């Protein structure tokens, strides 16, 4: 088991969170959708596991590289 920090690739805002802590997620699942410059950017799970924590809330402003979730794989 390893804790994986999921980081935002962009500066923008959190539009919609699609997962909750304790939820099982598989590779390719969408954790949340971010928004910047009229674009929706999904945050995709790279390795399946369990969501430990969602570290942002809908509407939050976020920076590129900021941790938005922690997934245990």
């Amino acid at each position, binding site marked *: 088991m390893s804790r994986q920090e999921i980081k935002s690739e962009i500066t*923008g805002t959190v539009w919609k969170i699609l997962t909750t802590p304790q939820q099982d997620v598989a590779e390719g699942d969408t954790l949340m959708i971010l928004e910047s*410059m009229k674009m929706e950017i999904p945050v995709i799970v790279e390795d399946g596991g369990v969501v430990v924590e969602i570290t942002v809330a809908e509407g939050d*402003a976020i920076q590129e590289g900021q941790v938005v979730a922690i997934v245990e794989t």
Partner: protein
Amino acid sequence: MFESILIANRGAVAARIVRACKVLGVRSICVYSEADADLPFLKEADEAHEIGPGPAPQSYLDQEKVLALAAKVGARAIHPGYGFLSENADFAEKVIERGIAFVGPSPRFIRAMGHKTRARDLAAERGLPVAPGTQLVSDNIDDLLAAARTIGYPLMVKPAGGGGGIGMLPVHDESQLAAAVERSRSMAQRGFANAEIYLEKLMRTPRHIEFQVVGDRAGNVRHVFERDCSAQRRNQKIIEEAVAPGVPRDVIEALGEKIARVLTDIGYDNIGTVEMLMDADGTFSFLEMNTRLQVEHGVTEEVTGIDLVASQIRLAAGEPIDAVLPVPPKVSGHAVQARVYAEDPKRFLPSPGVLSTFRVPEGIRVETGYGEGCRISTFYDPLVAKVIAHGATRAAATERLSAALDAFVIEGVKTNIPALQTILRSQAFRDGQVHTGLVGEVMAA
């Protein structure tokens, strides 16, 4: 001519309209959000007024704020630019109801063309070629599958309430259909406040060729040739040119004439663009009509010498088409435009930030709303500048454009310039072998 025009927009297009107002001797009135207070063109306008916070729904999209300001400052006309309120028929109606001229077609045309399946029906009824497609579809999976079978795969799920590539999703087989419809519906609801969806046959490597039309208030419409806008990422254009390379001029002329006739028949009464797809076998089909000025209008201006923005305003003020357009319009040379976006050049992800250095090339047409020190915020689209090169030949125009892109100095945000250069320098683009899959192919190579 109008004594004054309120420009209900921002950035490069607002700056462009301010320039047209100067040409026409019209008082230009800009609006700006708190996030845009330092945009340099605001100083060029005769007046500039803040209308609200950065998020567009609280400023540029807030109809009542725009209308209240227009009344307060005594604006005689409103130019909506492109995007924001430009294709909102309700807004256009409100503008007119308050005794202000709307620089665009009559609201009934905005409404008719804004609904994509109705626009397709209208085009088909009038004898324009239309790609195989469905009427609006429901969420019932059996109905969906049946509708899809009538046109076959691959197909594109498309929102009926708006364009711009938003919510358009390709579907390659039955298993992907339901999820794509659901996702497209959600994006459409969000983008256009209209969740209606339809299906259209997906062409594998079509070209996007669009016709610029110009009409007067009496409904006399002419076309001023075509643009090829096939170089796209995420269904949004990044390189546009006039005219379309390699398409026989008699084919273009016949189609342009037909489009102008259809629009004259229905009495279309300002500028607009009819977007068509051209299949690999040369077959054209109607895609949609945009009832507004287009981002890529500059390439048409460069090859025809027509000031489309000033023409649009003069036509909206009631001047007849013969007074506004040269007869007959002619094409001289070739023009290519590149859109410089604040986004990373590999994955095209947004890259907002402050333009700590911003030096634009000289001796070439650059359309921008920004200056050094300005912030490219997350609130709006990532367009930093449009660069438009004109040359005697396509090769010369492309060469000039490429050299100009090299001469940009931009620091503080990432830009797509390396990607634009890769495309412009690719053999396929140089050979005129453009199609909507070109950017993906060239970037993957």
